[in-house]
């Protein structure tokens, strides 16, 4: 794979940051966008825009078609069985809230149990907390071990007759641990418990196949997949879409409105209330094309190579401690440096054009478990190379120097 060529497709890398070349290691937060995606949005607004699904004029038809074609592409990309299983949301957070709220309202009662893990992003905890408060339900946390992974037995242990849903991350945005989703789904299936997967970090870095994984719900943020902000996807198995209530009410999601009653259409319409982020969804079709052109297998292999190189290089620095050491891991390295707060690390790295994230990465439970308040995180995308890792290790050495460590 020619990384230089791939990188050249991303206009952002032509800019200088603090006079230096941009070394972007924050793709787990949000990835950069290829020119094709940026241009697609501009073309859509220049030539094809109007609101979708409402008017009969030609532009409305074109816009609606482009929007719905993206749904078809997404269906194929994640191998969902039906196109109506693809619901556009504003991000993964909204996708998870949609399920927590609708499924929670209908199926979770007082004393019922929700299983999540200590690895979860706040996006896959807080929505369940709302249901806990509203319904008097119980949230059980599957324990994460000191390698930063959750063993399947830890989940198995928590399952009871009161378990109503298992909500787990696909790939931890802190330790990089990849969860054995298929095995967890098999386990849950024995007891007919639905499984929601937070696929935020899974979708950009792994081959995802809904029919093979077998999960009931899968939440995606397209801005982490080289796509525009404002677009998320909720995959939900058809059998649920037929029984779950609508989420938000408004225009576009109704069938018939009378003064004394309202009826609703099926999915996805039922779940896409109001005017949607049309241009961004259409722009996202180019992200899918980009990923398919490069090939997800190639992306996975490339990121694995850079990750392993990165882990080796960073481990050479004695003052650095990497958070977690999962057996199966994706392209994320969170770390701390002895005596230097992660925010100071991020500021010093930024001076050299190295963009990382510092903080708790919306995972306070996990950081507490790992015994740190915050960490620095370098995360990879398809455009990263070994030189980026070298720049990172040099910048880390500079931190030691500034702090006279």
């Amino acid at each position: 794979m020619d990384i230089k060529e791939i990188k050249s497709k991303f206009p952002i890398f032509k800019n200088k940051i603090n006079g230096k070349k941009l070394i972007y290691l924050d793709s787990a937060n949000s990835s950069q966008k290829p020119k094709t995606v940026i241009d697609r949005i501009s073309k859509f607004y220049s030539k094809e825009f109007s609101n979708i699904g409402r008017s009969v004029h030609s532009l409305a038809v074109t816009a609606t078609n482009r929007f719905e074609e993206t749904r078809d592409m997404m269906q194929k990309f994640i191998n969902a069985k039906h196109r109506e299983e693809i619901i556009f949301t504003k991000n993964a957070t909204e996708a998870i809230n949609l399920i927590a709220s609708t499924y929670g309202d209908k199926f979770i009662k007082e004393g019922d149990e929700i299983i999540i893990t200590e690895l979860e992003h706040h996006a896959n905890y807080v929505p369940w907390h709302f249901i806990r408060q509203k319904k008097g339900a119980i949230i059980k946390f599957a324990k994460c071990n000191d390698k930063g992974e959750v063993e399947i037995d830890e989940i198995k242990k928590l399952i009871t007759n009161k378990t109503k849903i298992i909500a787990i991350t696909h790939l931890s945005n802190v330790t990089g641990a990849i969860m054995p989703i298929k095995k967890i789904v098999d386990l849950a299936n024995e007891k007919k418990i639905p499984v929601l997967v937070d696929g935020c970090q899974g979708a950009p870095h792994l081959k995802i196949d809904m029919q093979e994984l077998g999960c009931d719900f899968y939440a995606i943020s397209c801005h982490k997949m080289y796509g525009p902000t404002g677009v998320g996807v909720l995959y939900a198995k058809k059998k649920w879409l037929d029984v779950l209530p609508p989420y938000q009410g408004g225009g576009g999601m109704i069938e018939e409105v009378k003064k004394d009653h309202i009826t609703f259409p099926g999915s996805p319409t039922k779940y896409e209330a109001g005017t949607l982020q049309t241009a961004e969804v259409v722009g996202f079709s180019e992200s899918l094309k980009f990923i398919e052109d490069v090939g997800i297998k190639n992306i996975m292999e490339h990121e694995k190579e850079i990750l392993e190189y990165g882990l080796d290089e960073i481990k050479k620095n004695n003052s650095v401690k990497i958070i977690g050491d999962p057996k199966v891991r994706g392209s994320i390295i969170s770390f701390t440096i002895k005596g230097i707060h992660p925010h100071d690390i991020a500021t010093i790295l930024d001076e050299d054009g190295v963009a990382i994230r510092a903080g708790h990465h919306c995972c306070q439970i996990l950081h507490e478990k790992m015994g740190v308040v915050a960490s620095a995180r370098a995360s990879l995308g398809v455009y990263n190379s070994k030189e980026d890792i070298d720049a990172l290790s040099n910048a880390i050495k500079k931190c030691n120097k500034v702090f006279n460590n």
Partner: protein
Amino acid sequence: MDIKELYQEIVLDHGKNPRNKNKLKSFNKEAKGHNPLCGDKIHIFLKLDNDKKVEDISFEGEGCAISIASASIMTETIKGKEFNVAKKILENFLNMLKESSKLRINSLSEDENTTMMSLSGVKRFPMRVKCATLAWHTFMHAAEEKKGTANTEK
């Protein structure tokens, strides 16, 4: 722009060996401060006597070098000063990080002035200004007995 402008020796020293980082045995006011964006936390303990003098002040907390250094420098600078003077110092400090880059306070000794000025580099790092101001806002919270936590995002 040199990173050493931000991490001046005085700042690093206060960050690594913070002064007054403990819980006062006797205090009559306290407040907690929180910067939810980066997780910095601070707890200020304050003894204001009847004449409105900062008789004693200390802090506990966790955060980056800038926030700890700033808390340390603040406690060192305002301890023993009249509350009105402390307030003036605070205003000038905030102003230094926002607009001017100089302090204009007659009541500070040259040493105190140099120490406070060591934080002026923060001005060039907008993302870090809140780290530097957290302790100061929390101090005012304690002094004026405001309810709740001093929060940089509110």
